[in-house]
């Protein structure tokens, strides 16, 4: 008997329900759990105090990323260098001790596979289509790029997953973001997701899981899909996903934890069924024409504050919502911007290329293509590239990208979250601007008083060359 047509989200959800109570709350099985040093110590401590063990330690992978300095981690003799900040050192030490104590595999801070959790998961084949993936970090949504239901959780939920390998959840509503047509040259997946957030707003996806649909996403590399899904949380959605296809299967095949042999064939056969059925309905639907999207940049302190690079700083009065007018006034005051100023006239002193949004090899290639044979402008005081993982870093070095960056005046760093959230020493000074490939332009996000303009890697590179926010299409043919 044919059942009701289902969305991709509903299919993955249904497959993972252990049981559902009368009030609609389900116990949902979690297939993959990523753990990092910042949101886990209190969870392990609580397990210890309650005398609880980890139910399925082999389904969890631990790797430090948020807090690690991105300067050299080993000296010329191969000896590990100490971390100067005692609190950061203690947090790293806690993860190093907790992982083996609870039987969890740990990727060391100096291992080649170390990197940002959301880069490491897909890269190691740990993140698979149709799985449920969680991590104590809101950008876990990124793994939706391989067709997984992936979302961020708090530390109490980290503890819950460790102890039970499940979460108690209610099913989310479904939202379709459909983008038809093709992106124009010079417009990237980052511009697309910024445009989407600017369209739906930071609460547009609250309570929903977004499925990104349409030929634009089908044509995208896995790296670009990860970038799009990563920022679902900036649109308020806890998760965002794209139906897995041959592009994803080809990306995953042969990776360390990906299935092999007969299991691979069985997995692919099931993964191919992971598409929204014809006739399935979404609770909310947004349609966007790809051809209308320009390279984007943010002007304010919310990721919804997006304008095309050819646009100007908006006037607060241009918003209809009085609360948004007030928020815009505060944002402009914090950002030191005047309404009407062309975005392309805004000078930047700092450039950050990195973060779980944009630190994969494709991102570094795009930035290097703009920088090749060029040098950062005099006004740019600090420019860094922080690869998403040791493997991305090695690949970039094999392609000679590191030399393009350093010859352009960039610092070439060790993998980690870095200046995306200003937890480690990589911070943007107060009152200065940063063209950043990260995901949040919140007040103080990149350091107290820092002013963030979110852009794509190519746009960040273009800003480095000219010393101001720039339309990258003017720099490349």
């Amino acid at each position: 008997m044919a059942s009701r047509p289902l969305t991709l989200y509903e299919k993955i959800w249904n497959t993972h329900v252990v049981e559902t109570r009368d009030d609609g709350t389900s116990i949902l099985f979690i297939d993959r759990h990523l753990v990092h040093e910042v949101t886990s110590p209190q969870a392990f401590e609580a397990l210890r105090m309650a005398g609880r063990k980890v139910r399925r330690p082999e389904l969890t992978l631990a790797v430090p990323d948020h807090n690690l300095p991105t300067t050299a981690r080993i000296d010329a003799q191969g000896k590990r260098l100490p971390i100067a900040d005692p609190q950061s050192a203690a947090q790293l030490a806690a993860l190093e001790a907790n992982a083996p104590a609870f039987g969890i595999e740990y990727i060391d801070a100096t291992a080649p596979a170390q990197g940002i959790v959301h880069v490491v998961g897909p890269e190691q084949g740990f993140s698979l289509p149709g799985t449920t993936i969680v991590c104590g970090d809101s950008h876990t949504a990124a793994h939706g790029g391989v067709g997984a239901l992936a979302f961020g959780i708090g530390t109490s939920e980290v503890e819950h997953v460790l102890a039970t390998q499940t979460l108690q959840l209610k099913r989310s509503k479904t939202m379709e973001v459909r983008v038809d047509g093709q992106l124009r040259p010079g417009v990237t997946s980052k511009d697309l997701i910024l445009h989407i957030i600017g369209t739906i707003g930071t609460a547009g996806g609250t309570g929903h899981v977004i499925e990104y649909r349409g030929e634009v996403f089908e044509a995208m590399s896995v790296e670009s899909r990860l970038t799009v899904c990563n920022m679902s949380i900036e649109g308020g959605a806890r998760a965002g996903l794209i139906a897995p296809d041959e592009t994803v299967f080809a990306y995953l095949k042969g990776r360390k934890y990906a299935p092999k042999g007969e299991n691979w064939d069985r997995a692919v056969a099931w993964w191919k069924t992971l598409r929204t059925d014809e006739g399935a309905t979404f609770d909310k639907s947004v349609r966007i024409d790809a051809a209308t999207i320009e390279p984007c940049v943010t002007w304010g302190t919310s990721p919804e504050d997006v304008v095309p690079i050819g646009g100007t700083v908006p006037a607060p009065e241009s918003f209809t919502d009085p609360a948004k007018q007030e928020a815009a006034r505060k944002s402009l005051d914090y950002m030191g911007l005047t309404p009407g100023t062309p975005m392309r006239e805004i000078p930047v002193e700092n450039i950050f290329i990195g973060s779980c949004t944009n630190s994969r090899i494709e991102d570094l290639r795009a930035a290097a293509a703009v920088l090749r044979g060029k040098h950062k402008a005099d006004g740019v005081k600090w420019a860094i590239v922080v690869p998403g993982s040791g493997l991305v870093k090695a690949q970039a070095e094999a392609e000679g990208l590191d030399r393009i960056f350093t010859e352009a005046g960039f610092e070439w760093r060790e993998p980690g979250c870095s200046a995306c959230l200003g937890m480690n020493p990589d911070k943007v000074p107060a009152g200065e601007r940063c063209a950043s490939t990260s995901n949040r332009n919140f007040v103080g996000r990149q350091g107290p008083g820092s002013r963030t303009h979110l852009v794509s890697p190519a746009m960040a590179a273009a800003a480095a060359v000219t010393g101001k926010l720039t339309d990258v299409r003017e720099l490349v043919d």
Partner: protein
Amino acid sequence: MDKVTDIEGRAIPYGAKNVDTDVIIPAHWLKTISREGLGQGAFETVRAQDGNVFDDPELAGAPILIAGDNFGCGSSREHAAWALLDLGIKAVIAPSFSDIFSGNAFKNGILTVELPQEQVDRLLEVAQTDPVNIDLETQTVTTPFQDRFTFEVDPFRKHCLLQGLDEIGLTLERDTAITNYESRQARDMPWLAEGTRERAA
């Protein structure tokens, strides 16, 4: 977890929209390995300004925070809930909350109360001078001026908050159901264990 029933006292009239968890607790406070003491860093950038509501001596120890739309958006850091707890906040009233924040608040015994914007505006006005009462049992917010607003709350969350129940303990009671699921998954999706089995060894 402490039981939540009746929350009565002054309410901090904050009211801002889209307050993200970086504002509630900036990242440099996240280096701790404990849940304690984060109140010191709560709303650090807001408190750097003179005359802010958080340092109003009349509101010291206020158990309620009133905020704007989409409160707690951004990072999943539970430190935001711990910081509010450390400030003495037992309930937050706002027109809407981010999904992750409301879950984190619930798991720490903080009640999140969603009310329409006009009712929140009224409470912001009352909070300037007078206390606010939240009764979880009857799901009502009242003021000394006969205001009476009812709110929705998930029945399971309500039950847990009223009883001070531990969610992990509740889930562990369903151990047989979880074990059965694991057996089904091992049979139907053997590939999920493949890469991980060797790591468990």
